[in-house]
């Protein structure tokens, strides 16, 4: 039985200059399982994820991450894997898919990985888990399609087996088949970990979702998918198109 992981936010307010991005946001979510954060563009979804990892400091309030056996964490980033919404590798970057995932494992695990065989196994497991064919291992990142790049980013985030996985709009720019593949990977990973996904397409992960949170700078609603998704049009108006 995987340990329970919780994210607790209390009165979190974030502003960029004069513009309020998050306004007194309070919630508690727990896993293993999927939490979907739904909201229109500019609702503060990315800001919320960045505040959880500590990249954005709140003006007021606090967010903390608790992992059952580790308790409250001073630096939650150690247990969080994060996949940003936008990622575009420099055109002349020679780093390969394998090297990229390996770099993530080496940087995050450091001395916990005692030898190169163990490191290689971790990298290959992550690549296999994300259905990346071996023929892509030596491809450069800049040569990949959008769908394959998403899978590589996911492999990079899960290679050190984080207890919390934060995915910022993982289906952006993907066709339906690529979205399906990513959705399956997310569902699989959520069996042992808390996965927080910001999205405009909550139906892709509907069956496996534990909690849906509707955000528009403030928390508009939090609950189970059956309770929240039917109300999305009422909550979000014309920005919600099912």
């Amino acid at each position: 039985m995987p340990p329970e992981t919780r994210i607790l936010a209390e009165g979190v307010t974030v502003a960029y200059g004069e513009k309020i991005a998050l306004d007194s946001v309070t919630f508690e979510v727990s896993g293993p399982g999927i939490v979907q954060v739904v909201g229109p563009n500019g609702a503060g979804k990315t800001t919320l994820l960045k505040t959880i990892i500590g990249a954005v400091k709140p003006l007021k309030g606090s967010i903390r991450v608790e992992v059952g056996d580790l308790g409250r964490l001073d630096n939650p980033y150690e247990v969080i894997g994060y996949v940003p919404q936008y990622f575009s590798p420099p055109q002349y970057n020679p780093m390969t898919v394998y090297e990229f995932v390996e770099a993530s494992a080496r940087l995050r695990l450091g001395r916990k990985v005692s030898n190169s065989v163990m490191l290689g196994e971790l990298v290959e497991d992550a690549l296999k888990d994300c259905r990346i064919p071996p023929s892509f291992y030596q491809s450069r990142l800049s040569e990949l399609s959008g769908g394959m790049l998403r899978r590589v980013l996911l492999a990079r985030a899960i290679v050190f087996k984080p207890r919390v996985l934060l995915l910022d709009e993982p289906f952006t720019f993907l066709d339906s088949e690529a979205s399906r593949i990513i959705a399956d990977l997310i569902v699989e990973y959520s069996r042992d970990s808390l996965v927080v996904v910001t999205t405009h397409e909550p139906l892709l992960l509907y069956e496996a979702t534990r909690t849906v949170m509707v955000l528009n700078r403030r928390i508009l609603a939090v609950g189970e998918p059956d309770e929240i998704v039917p109300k999305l049009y009422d909550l979000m108006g014309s920005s919600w198109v099912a």
Partner: protein
Amino acid sequence: MHKGFTVIALSSIIAAALLSLRYPASWAIGMGLAGAAYGALSSILHARGLLFVAGASPHVALASAGISSLIVMDAGTAWLVLSLAIGVSIIMAAGYMIERGFNADDAAAFMASLSSTAAVLALYRLSAIGGDVAGLIIGDPLLVGVGELVVLSLSTLAIIIALAVGGWRMIYIGMMREESLLGPTKSLAWSMILYLVLGLATVGMLRIVGYVLEHVLLLLPGIIASQAVSGWRRGLAASAIIGLSASITGLIVAVNFDVSPSGASGAILVLLFLMAHVIRGGAPWRRGGSA
């Protein structure tokens, strides 16, 4: 490593040795080391997408060299130390701002503008009092003394070791910004080492390579290498070999045709750049944005 690059590296070393039988060995050693150091650095700068910063660094080098020349009129060790202190500090300060979230292009634009202004003011004054302005701009590897050669050799060694050991960290951290912002302090340290190396190379080797050619040596080897190999280690090695071979070939052309060694090396790199693009996928002006 691609066999072709091994052959090119060995040929360049043999050519340098043969050249040294007829001319002072410091010429080939100076040019070869500078070319290899800049080549290796070029690969990592491309992988990090720091081209604007790379392009702005020679401006800082010129400004710091100009200011140092005004303070210490003799181009000896004191001049080099002062020049390095000014230039490396500015480049590392800009690098720190970038690593803490400041837009890289904004930081580079500010660094280039500030240092260009300072360079013009310093060089104007320097030319008025009879200082060697042309030497800083054009560079002259043939004037390298034994002391400078030792400094150059140690710098090149340090640059290549730093990049070979920490290159993967520098590249990865550059792509995944949050690692630098939130990861262990070591992440920031490795990025700062890259800026330190960039400062050492651009400021420390200015008199050999020259302000103008520093741009070419920082910008082109990485692109040319990336057309031929995949993988950061192979990219680093290929880029260093391209820098080395272009510099040695340039020196051979220079001594035979009485042209500037740095200029000849630059012309060879430009030709290699065009050839690499044509071989890889047709003329660059007939294709879209990607290589």
